[in-house]
């Protein structure tokens, strides 16, 4: 087993870096951080099902980036600058002043859309990396036990997500193999919801039956000590963030 950081360290560092990225708002720094995260996740992966959440967060980030760019090109206030190409302008009624769809696309407009998209995608990647390196379950183990209700809810939600993806895929293939030409949302959603609901109930029952929340205090089997390397990591993240904020 690799020596691991305290779960809170990773989440806190992610949060700090996220603040820095937003304040600095420099897409090149943001991309550098994403690259760094990718390397880090690749080195530190331990084969748990959560490892794939970083990849998922990258995908979601890419999707947001492309939507943001397309919307930015189509709709919005014109920014003067070097024109790249012109789209036909859509006539809008007079009660919608200041908004236009289409028109001249300038380099500035394109770059500002890309810029914002990259910042958002980086934020998502930061949390994807934190999830993929410490499963939310581990985070929950260090959480105090008086938040019983929240704890149960969190465990259920976090275990359900990876399962939801695999179940959806399984149901879709089953229906494809049945020869449904068009797979509608309803035909997947109903078995999926049914299954997730019964699974959540089973999990809640299991946690209940195993005494979760009975005692006010919890003991720890493998206490995760707060070590020097946690301090160093947090310090490093803080310095980077401070540099980004104060520059």
């Amino acid at each position, binding site marked *: *087993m690799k020596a691991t950081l305290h779960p809170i360290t990773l989440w806190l560092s992610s949060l700090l870096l996220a603040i820095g990225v937003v304040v600095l708002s420099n897409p090149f720094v943001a991309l550098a951080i994403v690259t760094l995260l990718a390397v880090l996740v690749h080195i530190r992966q*331990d*084969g*748990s*099902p*959560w490892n794939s959440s970083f990849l998922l967060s990258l995908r979601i980030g890419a999707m947001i980036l492309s939507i943001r760019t397309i919307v930015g090109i189509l709709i919005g206030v014109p920014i003067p600058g070097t024109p790249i190409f012109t789209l036909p302008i859509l006539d809008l009624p007079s009660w919608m002043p200041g908004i236009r769809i289409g028109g001249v696309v300038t380099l500035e407009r394109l770059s500002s859309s890309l810029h914002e998209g990259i910042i958002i995608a980086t934020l998502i990647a930061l949390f994807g990396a934190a999830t993929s390196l410490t*499963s939310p*379950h*581990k985070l929950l*183990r260090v959480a105090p*036990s008086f938040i019983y209700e929240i704890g149960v809810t969190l*465990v259920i939600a976090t*275990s359900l997500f990876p399962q939801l993806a695999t179940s959806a895929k*399984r*149901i879709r*293939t*089953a*229906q*494809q*193999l*049945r*020869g*449904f*030409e068009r797979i509608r949302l*309803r*035909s*997947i959603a*109903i*078995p999926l919801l*049914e*299954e997730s609901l019964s*699974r959540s109930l*089973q*999990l*809640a*029952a*299991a*946690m*209940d*039956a*195993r*005494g*979760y*929340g*009975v*005692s*006010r*205090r*919890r*003991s*720890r*089997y*493998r*206490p995760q000590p707060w070590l020097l390397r946690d301090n160093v990591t947090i310090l490093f993240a803080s310095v980077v963030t401070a540099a980004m904020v104060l520059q």
Partner: protein
Amino acid sequence: MISFSNVSLIYPQSTKTILEDLSCEIQEGEMVLVMGETGSGKSSLLRLINGLVPHHTGGILAGDISVDGISTRSVKPGSLAHLVGIVGQNPINGFVTDIVEEELAFSMEALNIPHDVMRKRIEEVLDLLSLSALRGRSIATLSGGEQQRVAIASALVMHPKVLVLDEPTSALDPIAAEEVLSVLHRLVHDLSVTVIIAEHRLERVIQFVDRIIYIEGNGETSIGVADEILRRSELVPPIVKLARALNLSEMGTSVREVRRLTESIREQNFPVAAPEVRNLSSAIEVAAVSYSYNQKIALKEISTTIHHGEIVAIMGRNGAGKSTLLHSIVGLHSPESGTILVNGVDPHSLKGSARRAAIGYVPQEPSDLLFAQSVGEECALADQLGCLHAGSTASLLSRLVPNISAHAHPHDISEGQRLALVLSIVLSGNPDILILDEPTRGLDYQAKNLFALTLKEYASQFNRPVLLATHDVELVAELADRVIFLAEGEIVADGSTLDVLLSSPAFAPQVAKIMSPKPWLTVSDVMRALGDNA
């Protein structure tokens, strides 16, 4: 240890009484089997013991249950966690953490047990269930049998006086099931743990249990020693069926006992029946097929031919490649190398109605195909999809299960009825081949018989092949003509059911074990041979 006094249970919005006036005492160190048809309330009875019913599920409970002197009415399930360990039907749905060791520690952490005690108990239980090699593994990567052992271990670390298990072997292959059951047997005998177990496959557990609680439906229950209950129950394992058919004076629940009683039969000489010669034409051709995912080889150069009219069972350990082989034949993915032809067509290219006419596939979770609001609507959809006369699917269904209501919601009907519904939807397209992935999980003997009859009729009437993956040895003995045995993605045995099942003791059905070395697999085989001889 556990006492039920005048316990009755009904769920609101349901007219059916689950339990009525159940009174019994279960002693320390007893192993008790709860049996009954699917949906008769076995799980409810089990969950009454630690108070999950009614604290967690609702329901109206009369009477009182006490465990080690504590009434389940007065405390929440969590407060019984140190006393009652419960292992659900699908352990994977009850795991709270990701790593084996953390899972074992979970309950103890929740109850604030000191660290040194925790360390000691975890080491003990890891050894007891031979899990130490898996301690650091992620639970999601374990096989079904291993997960089941982790679930039992995480209940045992609490040193409970009562262990409750709901169908602990239903997803396991015969060898893994044996392993789990022998662990339970040892717990009962060495540690005097009281074990309450619900199970459909009586042949697996019957030899271990002391007493049986039989839920007869509509709330009636009877309690007694195994012999007494089985003498008059409708749900009986093959071993009892054999004893009944042979009119044996005594009943035995273990192979050893019944072997002693049937010595005279085995001593007789019987003419060896000549194997039937059938006109074989190939329906499915699998040639040198390999497949792998995540760099793990799932199928290695598999070649076989399935003929028309044949019922073929695919067996093997959990993770041996059964599902992958079925998926390749169904055409879910095309194989990395090699070819598969179903009646001369590549199954991967089939789509829409051509697919429905060529291949009928019942997935591992039959309910994946159900999304309508009622059984009637589901049948109507199938008619529409297959361009059939209105009502043809419904009439097929009513032949399988006569008393099913068309207004019932597909998720409210019993497991057996749901399988019948999916089967009739799939069969309504009149497919050229039929493929089923572990169809009989959670079915009782009657539902299984019905299912076997349907498949036999389909295969013989239309001379079409049926291919099924299953762990259920008794079903294979009743149903299949041929068995393909997979291990590590390779075919290790392929031959007639008789040859394959008799050649491995772990996979031999009960009747074969009793009658060995005679080549009989089922009760009807024995009776036919005896009848011929008389």
